[in-house]
């Protein structure tokens, strides 16, 4: 399956982002385009620093390039990371058309009914707050979670919630640093996505460390391709 590794995204796109816009936050209501429009359409997503993708979790590789699996051939918790599908097709839709109740605001929401949404940032984001509103159905399963990912696609923070008991709830989170991606679990639509960030101006020595780090990530990516 073709996929874009988060780590490659972070390294390659991260370089370009040094000259990209720095946003203090990201706010989406998904209502500025017709139902069915791509979530990456500029009318929906005006931020050049953000992409809505589809993602999946997969095993890490060991030093020999083999997947780290348990004796049953399953991925091992802690030895996994998220990657993005190359054929992502995330759209905004009217939840009411799919039996998920009226949109929490206006008419549209972000469609994650049958595809988990991976919000990918070109650069590391230091979140001071996060909130997103669930659709007004009680679908969406139990123990759903929102994951915050680092540059390697590994989970660094989790928000858990139960939509069945709380349709239309606003899920909020606090400060998380170094976020390169956010995974919104499937089975529902999301609305009113608000991410507030704290801009961190790198110290001169940090630039050197980041460049060294990017070089290391490139090395890792290269080894994986062998």
């Amino acid at each position: 399956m073709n996929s874009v590794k988060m780590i490659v995204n972070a390294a390659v796109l991260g370089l370009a982002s040094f000259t990209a816009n720095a946003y203090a936050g990201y706010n989406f209501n998904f209502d500025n385009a017709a139902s069915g429009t791509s979530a990456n359409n500029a009318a929906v997503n005006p931020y050049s620093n953000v992409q809505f993708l589809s993602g999946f979790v997969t095993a890490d590789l060991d030093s020999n390039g083999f997947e780290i699996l348990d004796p049953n051939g399953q991925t091992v918790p802690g030895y996994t990371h998220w990657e993005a599908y190359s054929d992502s097709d995330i759209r905004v839709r009217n939840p009411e058309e799919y039996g998920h109740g009226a949109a929490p605001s206006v008419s549209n929401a972000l469609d994650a009914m049958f595809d988990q949404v991976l919000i990918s940032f070109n650069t590391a984001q230091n979140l001071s707050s996060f909130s997103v509103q669930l659709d007004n159905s009680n679908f969406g399963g139990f123990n759903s979670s929102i994951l915050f990912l680092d540059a390697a696609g590994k989970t660094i923070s989790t928000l858990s919630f139960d939509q069945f008991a709380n349709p239309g709830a606003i899920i909020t989170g606090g400060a998380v640093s170094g976020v390169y991606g956010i995974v919104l679990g499937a089975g529902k639509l999301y609305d009113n996505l608000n991410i507030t960030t704290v801009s961190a101006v790198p110290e001169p020595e940090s630039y050197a460390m980041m460049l060294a780090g990017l070089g290391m990530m490139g090395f890792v990516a290269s080894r994986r391709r062998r």
Partner: protein
Amino acid sequence: MKSPRFALNCVRAVVAATLGMVAGVSVAAPTVTRLTPPSERFATGVNDPTAPMIARFLPGQRFDLQATIRPDAGATITGFQFAVDGVTVPVTASTSGIVTTGLNAGLPANTAVVSKRAYSNNVPGIHTLTVKATQSDGQTVIATGSFEVVGITNQGRPAKNIIILLGDGMGAAHRTAARIMAKGYAQGKAKGHLAMDTFPYTGMVMTSSLDTIVTDSAPGMANYVNGNKQASGQEGVWPDDTADAFDNPRMEYLSEYLHRTQGKSLGIVTTADVFDATPAANAVHTSNRGNGTGIADQYLDDRKLTGLTVLMGGGRKWFLPNASNSVSPQPANGSQRRAANDYVLSSDIVSGWGAAVGAKDPERDLISDFSAAGYTYVSDKSALQSAGVPDKLLGLFAYSNMNVAFDKINGRRGVSTVVNDYGFPDQPMLEEMADKAIKVLAKNPAGFVLTIEGASIDKQAHLMDSDRWIEEVIEFDRAVQVAKNFATANPDTLVIVTADHETGGASILGASKVTNAELQGKANTVASMRNEVVGTYQDAKFPKYTIAADGYPATTDIDNKMLIGYGANADRYEAWIANAQPTQDSQQPFVGAAPLNAYPANPSVRNASTGYLVTGQVSGDQAVHTATDIPLSAFGRGAALFTGVMDNTDVFFKFGQAAIGGVK
């Protein structure tokens, strides 16, 4: 000098006296004789972490808590309390109950069955379940069991649609026989593959049920779609100690869970009577798979729980009114509805589950009620084809089990009158029903769960009618192709092909060493019909069937035909030639009248004048199910989950992962 034997007996006497004293103390408290959900912890009294976890659930999946408590003589049970991990489960009067009447025979007076309906737990992990009961003199008892909530993790794209193709009784040999007949072999290689052969992932399934290594179809199907072991003849429930077959402790089906949490629809398509165990074990909760009237009623009554949108198969006899509440004499309309096998639910089930209360109403016109509820009703293939794509669909194409492919195809070819004898000359093939079902279900943007059953693979293997069950597998495989085509066009669909168990111990012995003409002329002796006919190893060569444009063999009576044996057989006369008529089906309401009463009664008399007697290893008239593992093949979103050797209940949790957490 006393003998060592005497000394030993003295020790035994002391031990017995001591135990008697202990027992004397123990009778001053009630006892818990059943704690549901079942667990090894309760059954053995030992908290062994290596013991298998019998009851497992998806997060939030609903199930009943129940205990049977026997008070001391003269006492009554005055209170009970369930707790999970030490935390009391809140009990409300409307969703719990104490039942002390209508219990199974042999239980002591005042025995109580206490329940908490529709409990659920969202926290993954192993949980401790305790029940504490108090009797009228204040004495209490505490019993402990366990259950597990299986965690679902976000992994990728979920499966929107799940299609379960269940070839009832279809073991590996059944699949192989259909491939040999339908595709042929050349120099040891198959000249083609069945549709199910082309699925990229295959595993093996252990099929045992709660109470036996050899399952029947009720738990065999239900174990796949609610994740829990059920007992023989039971579907969607665990055993209890009451006589009512519709009040047993329930567990939520995949259809109910995904309809409640994701809005998915349910479709059930079968070649059997729709009350039969496999179809019913997707939607109906009863401890008696034979309760046809109540089963048929519950399909409609609880459609809001299951999301039932498509129901197709045979079984019209349960849907037609029977004002007399009698089947002797048989009503002219073929109805076999009876109050005795209908249902009325207790108030705690109604309140806890949101289920319909039901009614014992043999006079009910269930087809009319389905129509009033918005279902388009079709009664034959022509009506099915002209129905378009309605929002909801009910198709009942025979009084009971539909005719098998062998007879339907020969009817379409105009070379057999069997379907006319049954009174249903225009029955659809399974792939035609499957195609329509998928079109209807695909209208739901939230997705669907669809079970498609090739039922008579099992039924004809029971009857050891080899030509008929092989063609049943061919028909089933054509439905597999329909599902595969849909999943190819809709890649958010998961398709699995499997069976509930193997039937007959079927084995491909080899092939006939003689031409069909020679076989027809053989004497019915072992020397003639076995020793001169059965070719094994290189004598079998490669049977060559000619496949007609309709996809089925022009005839199964070819020269050097494939020969089937049975390892779990009853007595039968084997003539190797295809039977012109099927063996009688006791489920047909008019089986006792002409012309069906002239059909062969059973394999122990069928071909008695033309075949040789093969002595059975089991009693009765039919071959039986076996405990062998059966193959499972998977295609589409999440198919990679279905590899290795798995328990049948594991399949449910793989569905859950695919439909909720998604797969990479």
